């Protein structure tokens, strides 16, 4: 399964840009981290060399953030060793990792917006005089670092008054002042525009030339190719590839990240691809639907009885599109029509009234009500729609619950089991049942099969197919291309917050899809 590219490093090889032999500054071997129910990292080996920018790639749940958190001391490892700068470490916390020279800049800037820029850079090791903080000295030192980063801001100004990009650079400034040997950048560009990204990259390059090892996590392939020297790809908690950037193509990367489904699911015997009848009114139509910073204006038509598959990498806008269609986030451009009538989707509540359903990719935080029973979780949507004064009659309720327990093969088939005690797959089925009970016209499914076992996956796919057959319009989002291809009638491809292609699913292969996803275009960033 792990296929290393031909020139992956020997254990003590040449530096990434091919100069002198050099020892890795970080060496992680055999790292395994388990959480209840999942193995987040499975026997992972990872190395980082001084003076390189190393990209870490992978989809949701691949283990990127777990790996970073192991390196930065946030998580303890179940097994494996971490060497930093030639010494073995068992970090007890972020402070310990920082002392060893590993600094991290997170996507959600982990600084205090209520403090000054200088304090954010230096608090914890501020210069002192006579037992008190030497604010003047601190501001001077911060100024120097800011100058090195090319940032023209006052160290006295409040961090929260600056845009995210500047905050990001200040966070790097904090790391630089620590004189970090290793700088971890966790999706630092997710909320930056291209100018800001260019600025960030300038700083990263200058740090690299000073010999800092930089671990760069991003799901923007253009950026990864623009800045990194080497890359490691994770999938399902394992390393699936390690490459020199110059030797790898976009397509190879996308293949590794998304993977080819190895389990042989019994091929669903399904009708030939249904073609939408363009003369009919679509049940759901979006025109120019967008939101600044998360989705460029996008058109989409969903017809009764079809499955639209949305393919794209993490951060491509696939989830954002579904959330806008459901009113979970407010759009700031475009319009939505339901059966030809223009509607304002100001809240999920409104979307439900228009018979739209949405199952979030974040099952745990945005779907499951853990302390309630399976039956209550199933009935929640219908009950919310009816209002609290009109309870679903117990008989109807029992019938609906039993019916869906059986139909979806939910285990344990006990309506009174607590939701939090169910496995991920069964929780997902309950959430699916929540929407089925409401009999929506359109169902938006965001990664409904992520992180669940093969059997449940096949069952959910079968249900989706049946629903479309019975006339429901379905938007199916998944990182697994096979699954998208198997289920969809039409395919929409997203990249960099844009819809880049829409094709009927006739004779399309995963290779075709990957090629579209990986295609380098004028939209290139940085």
């Amino acid at each position, binding site marked *: 399964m792990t296929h290393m590219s031909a020139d992956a490093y020997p254990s003590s090889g040449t530096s990434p840009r091919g100069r002198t032999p050099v020892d890795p500054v970080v060496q992680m071997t055999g790292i395994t981290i388990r959480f209840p129910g999942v193995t987040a990292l499975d026997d992972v080996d990872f190395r980082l060399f001084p003076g390189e920018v190393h990209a870490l790639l992978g989809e949701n749940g691949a283990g990127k953030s777990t790996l970073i958190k192991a390196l930065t001391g946030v998580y303890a490892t179940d097994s494996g060793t971490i060497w930093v700068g030639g010494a073995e470490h068992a970090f007890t916390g972020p402070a310990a990792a920082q002392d060893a020279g590993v600094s991290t800049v997170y996507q959600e800037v982990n600084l205090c917006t209520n403090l000054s820029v200088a304090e954010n850079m230096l608090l914890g090791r501020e210069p002192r005089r006579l037992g008190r903080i030497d604010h003047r000295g601190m501001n001077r030192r911060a100024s120097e670092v800011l100058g090195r980063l090319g940032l023209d801001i006052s160290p006295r100004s409040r961090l929260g008054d600056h845009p995210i990009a500047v905050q990001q650079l200040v966070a790097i400034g904090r790391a630089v002042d620590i004189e970090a040997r290793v700088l971890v950048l966790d999706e630092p560009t997710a909320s930056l525009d291209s100018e800001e990204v260019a600025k960030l990259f300038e700083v990263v390059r200058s740090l690299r030339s000073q010999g800092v090892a930089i671990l760069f996590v991003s799901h923007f392939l253009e950026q990864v190719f623009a800045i990194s020297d080497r890359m490691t790809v994770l999938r399902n908690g394992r390393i699936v590839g390690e490459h020199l950037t110059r030797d790898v193509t976009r397509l190879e990367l996308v293949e590794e990240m998304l993977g080819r489904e190895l389990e042989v699911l019994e091929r669903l015997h399904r009708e030939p691809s249904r073609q939408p009848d363009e003369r009919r009114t679509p049940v759901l139509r979006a025109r120019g639907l967008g939101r600044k910073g998360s989705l460029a204006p996008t058109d989409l038509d969903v017809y009764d009885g079809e499955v639209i598959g949305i393919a794209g990498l993490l951060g491509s806008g696939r989830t954002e599109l579904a959330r806008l269609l*459901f009113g*979970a986030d407010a759009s700031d451009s475009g319009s939505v029509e339901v059966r030809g009538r223009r509607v304002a989707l100001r*809240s*999920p*509540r409104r*979307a*439900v009234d228009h018979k739209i359903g*949405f199952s*979030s990719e974040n099952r745990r*935080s*945005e*779907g*499951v*009500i*853990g*302390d*309630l029973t399976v039956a*209550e979780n199933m*009935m*929640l*949507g219908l*009950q*919310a*729609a*009816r*209002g*609290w*004064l*009109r*309870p*679903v009659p117990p008989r109807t309720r029992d019938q609906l619950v039993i019916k869906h327990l059986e139909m979806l093969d939910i285990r344990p088939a006990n309506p009174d089991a607590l939701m939090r005690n169910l496995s991920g797959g069964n929780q997902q089925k309950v959430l699916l049942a*929540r929407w089925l009970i409401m009999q929506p016209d359109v169902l938006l499914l965001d990664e409904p099969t992520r992180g669940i076992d093969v059997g449940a996956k096949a069952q959910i796919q079968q249900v989706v197919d049946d629903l479309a057959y019975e006339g429901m319009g379905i938007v199916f989002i998944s990182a697994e291309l096979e699954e998208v291809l198997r289920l969809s009638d039409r395919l929409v491809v997203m990249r960099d917050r844009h819809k880049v292609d829409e094709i009927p699913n006739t004779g399309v292969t995963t290779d075709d899809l990957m090629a579209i996803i990986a295609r380098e275009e004028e939209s290139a960033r940085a």
Partner: protein
Amino acid sequence: MRDLARHRLFWPVLALVLLLAVNVAATPSFLQIRMQDGHLYGSLVDIARNGAPVLLVALGMTLVIATRGIDLSVGAIAAIAGAVACVHLAGSPAPASTGTAITAVTLALAVCVLLGLWNGFLVSVLGIQPIIATLVLMTAGRGLAMLVTGGQITTVNNSFFRGLGAGYLLTLPIAVLIAMAVFAVTALVTRRTALGMLVESVGVNPEASRLAGVRSRTILWTVYVFSAFCAGLAGLMIAANTSAADANNAGLWIELDAILAVVIGGTSLAGGRFSLAGTLVGALFIQTLSTTIPTIGIPAETNYLFKAVVVIAVCLLQSPKARAAVWRRRRDRSALVRAGRA
């Protein structure tokens, strides 16, 4: 037996039983209930009657806490309710008539509903943290009550009104009957309609509830209004019991007793699953505690000390961290034992 120990009411009920046992040990006649002039008398009846206001307030508080909220203003609202009713009674041309009493009670409860709407507005529309939003009324409320009474302890003489707090019906104190009726109605409404489930879902996972289409704003508003209504009823009871409205002291610290009752009853301050039966046990426990302390020869006022101990104990029992610490120690020890055997 194991299942019994796991039942969520097991610990609260056990604590209550132990407390009653202490009382019986101190005064063997404790459990006696005798009939006199067609009324039931006895310590147990007293506990039930004196505990009625706390129980009422705690019922409203239970629902508020289940939504991850808190209502600090209930004591102030209770004082306002008593003030409004008594001032209306005292100022009416027929201060002793039943009709006036009914108007006074209705008026007082209507004011409380308005105050509940106000709290609900701050919490659900403006999105202010519940503890802060209700702090406003907690601070201003007793001032408002004094404004209503003109700073006097307003006394009234109305037998119907007095009955609410001190009267008997069918041998039982009316206060107890009212509290039990509200308890029954609350239980019925929360469990027979979908209110209970929606309250819990908002409390457990607000975001998931929103995405399932739950109108959390309406739910929040409902629970704060209900809490204010219950507080008002409790305030009327307190005022009726003494036939006077004391804006300064009526319902003083009742919010804390109510919160305590809810917590003892097993409803977590983090929101979610609530237990009205637990709250009932909790309220009885608190009232029994207040009765027990003088019985066993400790100054009555020190009951605060015991309440503090109970709060700390319950919090530590509910704190995952504290439980984990105990559990880990036990596990380490068992590991040691195993190692020793090997």
